[in-house]
């Protein structure tokens, strides 16, 4: 439990720091944009008028998006044994602050999935379902930043980034007694890369691959211990649709 609390504390601090950095960066960029360079008080007005216009820094902006994730879990054998699938589909959403500074962007996203299965036993590699219903919920919250490189006049934008992950995990079983269900959060990290394309001026669609790791979240009991699987992360293929305000 101590390690879980430490992990939660770390991710809270990291997330707050990332958010603060994003907000501060955004504020600075905004200040650059809204406050023109101070005019030289001694310069003749004509000179001022004849000077070429300074290139305007791109405005940072916010957009929201919805995501459709398919995650190949690191604990694939465990999940396959209990819920019958090694890959989970999640639906989520989030927001991105784009063009904070040049191609820098920041994002916050959350998704979730809820699956039902059966408690089971494992013997010589054979999984034996016991018919006791089990429900598992995963709720990853990611706070990340990255870099975008617009191509083709901004129609195609490859990007990449990294961030921290806060994985909410809940497991409940019928007939469970006190202490046998679990609801915890674990700290992890995520790296990602993808490409997005502008569909219309205010809608983009993108595809992204993520590698998530949430170490030591599993493996202390249950089938995850039997399989020796301790990571609650995995590889995620994400489809996203973003809407600019």
């Amino acid at each position: 439990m101590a390690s879980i609390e430490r992990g939660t504390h770390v991710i809270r601090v990291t997330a707050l720091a990332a958010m603060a950095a994003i907000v501060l960066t955004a504020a600075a960029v905004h200040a650059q944009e809204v406050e023109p360079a101070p005019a030289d008080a001694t310069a003749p007005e004509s000179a001022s008028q004849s000077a070429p216009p300074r290139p305007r820094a791109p405005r940072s902006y916010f957009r929201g998006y919805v995501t459709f994730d398919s995650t190949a879990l690191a604990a694939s054998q465990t999940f396959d044994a209990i819920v019958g699938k090694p890959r989970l589909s999640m639906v989520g959403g989030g927001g991105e602050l784009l063009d904070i500074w040049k191609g820098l962007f920041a994002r916050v996203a959350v998704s979730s999935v809820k699956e039902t299965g059966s408690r089971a036993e494992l013997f010589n590699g054979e999984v034996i379902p016991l018919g006791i219903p089990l429900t598992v919920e995963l709720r990853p919250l990611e706070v990340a930043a990255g870099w975008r490189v617009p191509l083709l006049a901004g129609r195609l934008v490859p990007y990449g980034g990294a961030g921290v992950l806060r994985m909410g995990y809940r497991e409940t079983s019928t007939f469970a007694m006190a202490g046998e269900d679990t609801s915890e959060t674990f700290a992890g990290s995520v790296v990602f890369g993808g490409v997005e394309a502008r569909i219309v001026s205010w809608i983009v669609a993108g595809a992204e691959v993520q590698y998530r790791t949430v170490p030591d979240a599993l493996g202390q009991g249950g089938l995850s211990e039997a399989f020796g699987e301790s990571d609650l992360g995995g590889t995620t293929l994400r489809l996203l649709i973003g809407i600019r305000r």
Partner: protein
Amino acid sequence: MKPAHRVPGIRRALLVIAAAMAVVLVLPLRDIQAQRSGPMIGRAAPRLPPVEPGLTIEKVQAFAEAADRGLDYLPGEVLVKFRAGVQPAGQTRALAALRSRPSSDALRWSGGVARLRDASEPDAERLAAQLRSQPEVEYAQPNYIRRVPRRVAEPRTAPIRTGASPLAVPNDPSYGDMQWNFRLIQAPAAWTINPGGSPDVIVAVLDTGFSTEALTEPRTLWTGQVFQQVPLRFATSSDFSQARVVGARDVAFEPGRPPFDYEGHGTHVISTIAEEANNAVALAGLAYATRVMPVKVCVGYWELMLMRATFGIPGFLPTDAGGCADGDIAEGIRYAADGGARVLNLSFGGTTMAPAVREAIVYAISRGAVVVAAMGNGYEDGNGVEYPAGHAPEIEGLISVGAVGKSTARAFYSSTGPHIEVVAPGGSFRDSDDGEDAGYVWQVTLYPPDTSPLVTTVPRFDRYVEVGYIGTSMAAPHVSALAALLISQGVTNPRAVEAIIRRTTRDLGPAGRDDEYGDGLIQARTALFGRGIAR
């Protein structure tokens, strides 16, 4: 005229009567039994192998001689298995090594193992050794006698209580007061997951029998001075529905007839496994929704006395005469496995290894059955290894069971050793802080004074009471019942059943496995709950 002088005439007359009874009584009973085991409960009847003769007069005398001489085998009787492909001529050649030079026609076969009786050589160890030296023979062994573990205390009794208990679940009136043993292994919580198992799971109990019919019949019995016709009364347990009995079989005494219990041990074991629950009568069984298959492989004092009287042999036998012969055990194990039993309870043991029994156990496991064996009650009597429990470490799917008392301390009698795998409640009067009786394992069975040769010369087998026994015989059925519950939840591999039961024990004694408690005390609820993702 002295009874001894009348013996030949009586013998001849009784032989005629016995033959007539076989035609008139036994054959119709077989039909009745076949009907009962099948359509009554709407399921296919198990495949019943042909009936073998049970307790012959030669075998009775062999049991008597074994009791007199303190032998652990039937004199002059061996079990022999020939190597694969050996034809009758080869068998006869191997048998020629014996002094009596019997032919292969003298062999009685059961499951590939032959029984041979050689009256000219009572030393069965010598017979077996002579056969083992023949190249045609895979193994040969005396027909060893195993015993339901000797009683370590006189049973306690109480009348059957009726009336639902308003507070307890199950509502059987004596459950709350007496069945500490089930609470010790988490039975109440296990029942919320799996209430008593499934009738699809059959638990075979190879033991002294289980009366499946109410019957009163005149039988001849030596009562001290003369042979007397006495009415033998049998009844079924009032706390067990006969609809949950399937394929009942008497291998050892009178094949073809119901496997009447003349002692009470088998009934107690069956009651621990599957006595009715939630019926407001007496006590509960752990796997009360399963079906049971009583297989009588043990005979005791009364069966031997009845058979001797049938053949006009006067006199009393030692009260501990009888036992469970390896030939009958092996045959019973194969019968149960072929008949669809998924769990076999063996609450008996002996200090000799028996290839025939071991082979039958391996066969049963290969047919999908879990086999459970009692460790034995000999801790304070030399603490020798008893078999078949002694085979447990080398056979996956065979579980050896020691006993603990109410405090979870090892019961004072429970044998120990590297072969112990788990412990279960067997009861003890030494570690119960609320009276000796409260430390026993209580179930409904025959009223002990009715069946004790120390108390009566005319027994009856029709009165059931709540009886407290202690012993590893009582511990083993807890494990058998738990195995039945696991199987009803879908764990069909006997090796997996053993692995789960052992993995989910509560560790007792020194941390980890030890020779007193094995892996620890079985925990029914933990076993049934299985594993989730993180917990």
